């Protein structure tokens, strides 16, 4: 595949909730190394759009293409390519940070790479708190476990819902490093955020869903 052809493409997507149209006519194309920052007021359908791109929900209209071919919800190719970091943390309070990460890495691979998990937890500066149940961690620390999961996940397409929420200055630095590594490696990122994403301006594409809301 030539480098310039889009890895992820959306063609006139529309979403409905109940009988109301959230957005329509949403189109974009992302090449490797690109970031799409989705913005818009509350309730405009940012989370819905991310869930469509992750393959959790079907668009009411339009189509999504991955590497040039159309994908449907729960498509195996999409499931192989996507790391989805939604607004739900997917953490088990009963398990420690290490156990949570081990459960997720073994869901994707056969074996848990415990050294890799330790390195990832160090990378998000959670090493010291990694052996206590997740329920004892603060909101920002829980978000960092999510970042460690991204660090462990060799997926080309990251879909992040409000990745900056509850992160402090150091946390934002960690996220910046992770995003840079993902984009340099030829991956792409779609993120919904109210704040500016910590990525280089030339990589950034913007999508304002308020403009796609016609009703």
């Amino acid at each position, binding site marked *: 595949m030539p480098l310039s052809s889009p890895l992820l493409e959306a063609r006139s997507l529309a979403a409905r909730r109940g009988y109301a149209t959230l957005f329509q006519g949403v189109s974009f194309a992302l090449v490797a190394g690109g970031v799409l920052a989705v913005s818009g007021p509350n309730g405009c359908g940012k989370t819905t759009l991310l869930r469509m791109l992750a393959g959790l929900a079907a668009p009411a209209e339009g189509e999504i293409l991955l590497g040039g071919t159309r994908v449907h919800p729960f498509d195996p190719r999409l499931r192989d390519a996507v790391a989805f970091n939604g607004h739900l943390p*997917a953490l088990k309070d009963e398990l420690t940070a290490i156990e949570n990460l081990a459960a997720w890495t073994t869901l994707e691979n056969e074996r848990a790479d415990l050294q890799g998990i330790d390195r990832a937890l160090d990378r998000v500066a959670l090493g010291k708190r990694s052996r206590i149940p997740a329920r004892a961690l603060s909101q920002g620390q829980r978000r960092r476990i999510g970042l460690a999961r991204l660090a462990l996940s060799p997926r080309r397409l990251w879909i992040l819902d409000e990745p900056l929420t509850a992160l402090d200055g150091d946390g934002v630095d960690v996220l910046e490093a992770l995003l840079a590594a993902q984009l340099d490696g030829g991956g792409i990122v779609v993120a919904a955020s109210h704040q500016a994403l910590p990525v280089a301006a030339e990589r950034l594409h913007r999508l304002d869903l308020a403009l796609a809301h016609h009703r």
Partner: protein
Amino acid sequence: MSEATTTAAAPDAASVSAAFGWALARDLRIALRSKAELGVQLMFYVIVVSLFPLATSPSREVLATLGPGVLWTAALLASLLSLPRLFSADFSDGTLEQIALSPRPLPALVSGKMAAHWLTTGLPVAVLAPVLGGQYAMDGTELGILAAALLLGTPILSLLGAIGAALTLGARGGGSLLALLVLPLYAPVLIFGAGAVDALRAGMSAGPQLSLLAAGLLLALVAAPFAVATAVRIALD
């Protein structure tokens, strides 16, 4: 089914059993971290079974007539009560999304969860029932048949119930809606299960009832994982 066509590439046996084992081990580990909850569910079974003599009569003839029905109805209710635990925590904390998005086959993953559910609810009930059956003037052979019928029948309850539990995710009315969906489907299991001991008492063989329960179990084992996987995907949409 529309999803089925997109996941056409059949997963191989190794990845199916790996996915099944992953979900089973994970759910068992979490269940064992909250043992008190499991104990409460078993106590519910014991108490419901023990209330019937108080509500009717301590006479041996009455209790012997009621026994199999009471032990089975209580097993149905205990299964129903534990069903929300199967998916709702995973649904509300986002785990279910991640499971459904993982490259592993979803029917195998939900099968692991259902197996964990049965091991922590159905199996203890089947083991406990012969002990409680003593309260209902049942003899050794009858208790054996009762346990055999419960061992065959309670997995069907977990499998059918999981369909209802997945369908009601995110719906209003939670527990009572689940009861309305699931209890009518439980009727044949109740009839054949309680009927096994009744047949023995009427001087017949319990074989037909046990065979029918086994047939029902096979059907549920084959069909339910796909129905549950579809229901989970619908719930996440």
